[in-house]
């Protein structure tokens, strides 16, 4: 049961990212003639938003492990260790070198999207399985919302910072 809960947590954080990534890129290509600077910024900020989601995921893991941050508690809290470690690695996208290639963030999020597909294939033929898929889709919807909000927040912060620097430079001149 705890494995399933962990799986739901991973789906809730990361499975919505591929859709957001693809939508942003699709819109950037479709609206090519309009403000390309803005579009490039959205695409450039995708890995940063993904890293923010990864950071929030680490926050959740720490919350589950606390109050005693012992090795025993940490290992007991990891029920799907490989996937959770893979999820934690999302914070690497804070590193500018990795962030330069947004497609890496898409590739990183695909295993979590594949968790959904796995359940679609294995659980679709039973009534209890459909309850599993129902839970998955609720978490997937949550993930889409979380990743969208994360992207908007990151974009807003980036825009705000750039605007602040531009005004500062203007004032200095």
């Amino acid at each position, binding site marked *: 049961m705890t494995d399933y809960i962990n799986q739901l947590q991973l789906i809730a954080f990361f499975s919505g990212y*591929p*859709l957001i990534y*693809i*939508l942003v*890129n*699709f819109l950037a*290509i479709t609206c090519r003639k309009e403000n390309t600077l803005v579009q490039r910024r959205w695409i450039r900020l995708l890995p940063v938003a993904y890293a923010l989601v990864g950071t929030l995921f680490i926050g959740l893991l720490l919350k589950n492990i606390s109050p005693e941050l012992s090795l025993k508690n940490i290992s007991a809290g990891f029920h799907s260790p490989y996937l959770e470690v893979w999820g934690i690695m999302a914070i690497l996208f804070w590193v500018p070198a990795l962030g330069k290639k947004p*497609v890496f963030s*898409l590739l990183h999020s695909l295993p979590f*999207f594949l968790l*959904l*597909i796995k359940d*679609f294939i294995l659980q*679709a033929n039973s*009534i209890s399985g*459909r309850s599993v*898929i*129902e839970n*998955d*889709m*609720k978490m*997937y919807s949550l993930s889409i919302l979380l990743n969208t909000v994360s992207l908007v927040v990151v974009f807003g912060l980036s825009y705000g910072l750039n605007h602040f620097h531009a005004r500062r430079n203007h004032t200095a001149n």
Partner: protein
Amino acid sequence: MKFLNNKILLPLVILISGYGYMISCTHENDLLISTGPKIERGTLVLNFPSDGSISFDKTHGNVNWETPYLGELSVLTGRFNNFGMTTFNFDEDNPANTKFEAWVWVNSVNTSEPGRDGGCLQTTFGTTKDMTTDAANVATIKSKSVEKSTADKGYIVKFDFTFHGVTKELTGKLMYDGMQASGDGATLKKAYGFSFDFQFLAKTDFGIISNNIADNITVKCNAIFRQ
């Protein structure tokens, strides 16, 4: 990487997501709505006394009552020694055809305490020991409507209860307890068991004055018919 082309990925991801939403929104939970247990009733039809082969076995029947002593303590119980069935028409699968009328002699009350049974109870009931079919001495039940219970194999009965000079409509539960057969061929004998339970407010609705009992009286009747 060609497979990461947006023109392929976007419809693919949307299709997969849409499929997931479709499966999860099948409303199969509606199947879990229960309309109650599946109740199967037989087809027994009994008509007493119109069917001459049916007889009321008073010896193995009883009419019992109980009420908390002093209104709230342990249960005080009693029975009526003299009771009978005027009519009993029972249709197991069609309760609209079920009707019955029965009576007890109130002064035949039996609580195993002769002093009480022949004394204060007679006074409480407004009867005397030598009454018989006097109106004051006969309590009757007469069914008005019968419906199948949705919770079990029983029947919900609305009936007129006449007691202590008052007639009031009450609701009770009728159960067909089953049939036992003995012998075969010409010697085949069948016994059918029925029970009927109801409650009434003796003080509030029927004017009984007594500090020794509660207002609520529970009555349990058991009847055997033989064929």
